[in-house]
């Protein structure tokens, strides 16, 4: 039976490590802060959860398993708060999430990534067939200005 629990624990740890790799690739490849936080969430939930579940299988019924459960609870409690703080700070700085305006996400003329926004700002906005009624097209700088003005009035 000990061998069975070891096998289950090893498989869980391997799958958790796979999710960590997926999260790391996502952090590297995603275009902006918010989507990168989404990728980091995979490693926080699936990765950490599976790793700690596997470690609990390896530890068996002992004090170590209880401590691992507490660690898992702490991770699941703190990582959403940290993500919230990060997103709030990014929004406070005036960062605009990718895909909010008329930006193209996939295909030719796609959003070039955070490094090239300044240079290729003209190419990334497509002429949309149906302009959204809610938002008239503005330059990003003007949008940022209005956003900061809104914030100032609110606070």
């Amino acid at each position: 039976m000990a061998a069975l629990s070891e096998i289950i624990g090893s498989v869980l740890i391997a799958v958790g490590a796979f999710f960590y790799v997926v999260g790391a690739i996502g952090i590297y490849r995603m275009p902006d802060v918010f989507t990168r936080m989404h990728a980091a969430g995979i490693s926080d939930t699936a990765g950490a959860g599976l790793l700690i579940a596997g470690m609990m299988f390896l530890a068996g019924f002992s004090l170590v398993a209880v401590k691992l459960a507490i660690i898992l609870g702490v991770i699941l409690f703190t990582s959403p708060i940290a993500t919230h703080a990060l997103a709030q700070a990014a929004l406070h700085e005036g960062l605009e999430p990718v895909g909010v305006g008329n930006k193209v996400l996939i295909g030719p003329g796609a959003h070039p990534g955070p490094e090239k926004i300044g240079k290729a700002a003209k190419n990334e906005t497509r002429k949309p067939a149906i302009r959204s009624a809610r938002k008239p097209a503005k330059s990003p700088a003007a949008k940022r200005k209005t956003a900061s003005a809104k914030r100032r009035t609110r606070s």
Partner: protein
Amino acid sequence: MKLDVIFRVAAKIFIPFMLVFALYVQFHGDFGPGGGFQAGVVAAAMVIFYAIIFGLDAAQKIFPPRIIELMVPAGVAIFAGVGVASLFLGNDYLDYSPLMHDPVHGQHIGILLVEIGVLVTVAGTMVAIFYSFIGRGR
């Protein structure tokens, strides 16, 4: 000052556990990993966390800078006082054996007292450095 509800609630839930964990690390130090230095850092992290969430003024109301700066020499005094106490009881400096009737028990009590001194000094130093950094230009 704008207070975010999520951070405030999270801090209220989390700060007691941080203090308990600091004490766990403190008193677990003679059986496993841990000790006065780590416990002091965890306790100082609790104060810093509180100051980040609620602001420096609220933190300095609860942990006044006078007391924090008093903690730095107080811990050293505890550490040295244990050593001098064992010196007066007839042994070498910091030889804890004569502190209790049983030498083994005396060793146990002695290392706990010394670790408490380390905790006080490290926590006080960390918080004092944090206060002096974050209070610049005020």
